[in-house]
């Protein structure tokens, strides 16, 4: 048992190192976080936080009373998150493994550079490009029509909306997301791999028993962080394409906040939903972290 004094002596340099970061967080995150009191006010900019009247839980009404429009947004958000965790999350890992296995260093670098480029396009451009190619009046359909084939409808079909935005996300971010896995893969011990080859393990077995386990902790970490972010799914991407399918199929929490809060100057509603998202996010991170511990992983933090 170390006394407080001893611990201080031992760790004071660490605390000093943490100081700039912690100060920045306190000043620019925690201080304004208090402004979330707006969630309990009928906030008017000209009255400011100090003079806007309090309205208790009024801004939380849609959430508490289960307003169907809000619930629809919530359900859409959860479905999209589920799809993305199951189908989109593993893809960069696979791609990273493929890239990693590429022998030619130059080829590897070249393909990497190409594949991560879409990340830099803003959603406005990506959506415009997508519609140009796959829209009902776009290039693909124009060609199909002139060849007398039936047209390919994905834009403007409510049932396919979630599939469509998922494919857009895959195109845009898969390459970029490999970066962090590649960094992790660069740490895999070549000696271990050599030993496995000598033992006669096939490529697949080497993958499963040597490579993957060494990046397992990174995968788990990122998964937990991704889950904590579950309720935020692509605002800009969706708001740009919402009018094609209507709110029923496309409204998510962030667009709900925009359409029903910010557009009408309802800052209180926006803050209220933000708080709800935060609370749910905390629960998800705690839960996922605990599950990670059960699997023997460190997770985001340990006891």
């Amino acid at each position, binding site marked *: 048992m170390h006394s407080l004094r001893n611990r201080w002596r031992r760790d004071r340099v660490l605390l000093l190192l943490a100081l700039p970061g912690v100060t920045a967080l306190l000043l620019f995150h925690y201080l304004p976080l208090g402004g979330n009191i707006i969630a309990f006010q009928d906030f*008017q900019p000209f009255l400011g936080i100090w003079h806007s009247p309090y309205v208790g839980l009024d801004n939380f009404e849609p959430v508490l009373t289960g307003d169907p429009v809000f619930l629809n947004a919530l359900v859409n958000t959860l479905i999209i998150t589920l799809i993305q965790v199951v189908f989109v999350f593993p893809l960069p890992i696979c791609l990273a493994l493929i890239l990693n296995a590429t022998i030619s260093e130059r080829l590897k670098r070249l393909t990497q550079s190409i594949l991560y480029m879409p990340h830099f396009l803003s959603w406005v451009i990506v959506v415009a490009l997508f519609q140009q190619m796959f829209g009902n009046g776009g290039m693909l359909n*124009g060609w199909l*029509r002139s060849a007398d084939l039936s047209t390919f409808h994905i834009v403007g079909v409510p049932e396919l909306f979630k599939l469509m935005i998922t494919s857009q996300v895959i195109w845009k971010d898969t390459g970029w997301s490999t970066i962090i896995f590649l960094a992790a893969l660069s740490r895999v011990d070549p000696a271990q791999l050599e030993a496995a080859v000598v033992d006669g393990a096939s490529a697949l077995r080497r993958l499963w028993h040597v490579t993957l386990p060494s990046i397992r902790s990174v995968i788990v970490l990122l998964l937990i962080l991704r889950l904590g972010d579950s309720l935020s799914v692509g605002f800009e991407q969706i708001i740009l394409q919402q009018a094609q399918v209507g709110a029923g199929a496309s409204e998510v929490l962030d667009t709900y906040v925009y359409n029903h809060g910010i557009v009408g100057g309802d800052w209180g509603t926006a803050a209220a939903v933000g708080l709800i998202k935060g609370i749910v996010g905390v629960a998800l991170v705690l839960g996922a972290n605990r599950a990670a511990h059960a699997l023997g992983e460190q997770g985001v933090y340990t006891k």
Partner: protein
Amino acid sequence: MAPTLSRRRVLALGAAAGLGPLLGACGDGGSSSSNGSTGPVKLPTYKPVTAATPDLAAEPAGVSPGYLTYPTASGAASEPVRGEAVTALTYTYDPIAPALGSNPYWQNLNDKLGTELKITYTASADYKSKVATTIAGGDLPDMVAIQGVFQQMPAMLKATFTDLTEYLSGDAVLAYPNLAGLPTDAWRSAVYDQRIWGIPVPRARIGTVLYTRADLLAKAGLSLQPTSWDEFKQMATALTDERAGRWAFGQIPFSTILEMNGITGNWPGGASAWQAKDGVFTHTGTTPQFAQALQDTVELVRSGVIHPDQAGAPNTKRNAWMLAGTTSFTIGAYAGWGKFYGQAKNVTGFRLTGMLSPTRDGTGTRVRTPGPTLSSFTAIAKTDDADRIKQILKVLNWLCSPFGSSEYMALRYGVEGQTFNRNGSDPTLTEGGRSQTLLPVRYLAEASPVIYEPGNRQAVRDQYDHQVAGVPLAVPDPTLGLYSETAASKAASAQQELDSVLLEIQLGNKPVSAWQPAIKQFMDRVGNKIKAEYEEQAGR
């Protein structure tokens, strides 16, 4: 949007098919004190200002004057406004202009104006956030452009900005001759709680236009003005060739179909959706004509004459379709008419006209949805310094200099030989001039719009003809000058849901019968309250 109109006024507005005397009329009622606390405010006296005689006269009232060439002589410049620099916050729909240091146009403007203009501005998409944070922060520039309606508007204005009534009401405005030339209806939109809060940036009366590729219609042998619903549909079908990738419309022409059924309204958003008769307000969404319009719309959509990617397409896309001939129609604000020509320089035979909505069977009076009276109004930050207020008003007055004056030259074109050259009598911006004049001075204050297309007399005529035909048909918006707190603060969410249902019906995802319960819900939630508020104000 404040003051009470007398009952008689509302009736007069509602009954008039044309706007004739009302637009030119000075002030309001006449019976109220200029104090305004007990009665309707006296709007600024209207005294039109012209620096050059137009080739196409501004008649009937509400039509913009047309100029086929730029006037050769400009009058003498007015006195510069002396005083300390003036700061302003506004929005822009254009790319940004170079900074003052690299902007000779701006430097010249400051010089002629006599006062240094310091303008902060953002893209219009971000403007709402910028204004909200600026007001919340408390440190306002001298002038702020107020766009749209804010929650608790009267209280917000009272707390944050200067009441300008004593400087502008009635004949007081004559001290600022250019301001007196702004249309009365535009002033009406800057009045809240019987006080005048700012200088309006006026817009043409004509409202949203069904832009037509007249050259494509001529090629197909079609009339530029169909006279019935059937003819309209046939025209649309004739212009559509799916295999060739051509469709008639770039979006669903819902407001056109509404007008054809005899009612007005700009959807989504529900602007101009209220009618008034004998002091009773009705939301057009509750009328049987609206339901009929929905039927018609679904029928039109089903006939396949609308571009399949129309939903949610950005305006740049729709305009590109128009220019490429992919579509023959697009609906847009009148203010954008001129810009098409700049982009269409390489489209041979390009001719743009505006189409009016026919009546269903060709008989009876056609109607038209009125446009907004202003783009925004410019308010002055709260201050007690009367001299400062007068200086700022003089600056705004200068910015409203009429077409053809030398101030206008400095405002729109800059310095001859440097930022523009002359092509005959028409000024042409140089490349530098083009980017420098993007400074959004015109979103602070400007004179009433005129029709002028350098080197394109046909375009001027087309716009003028459209206005002459369309302006008298505009049905005045009875809510002009009225303010409903419910509409300003609680309606946004309900309106979103209503728009959502409308969209789903138009896209075919929901049946037309889904409209009745949706509009009923809207009226129950906010609509009836809004109705009561308008009626109370109108009846006073």
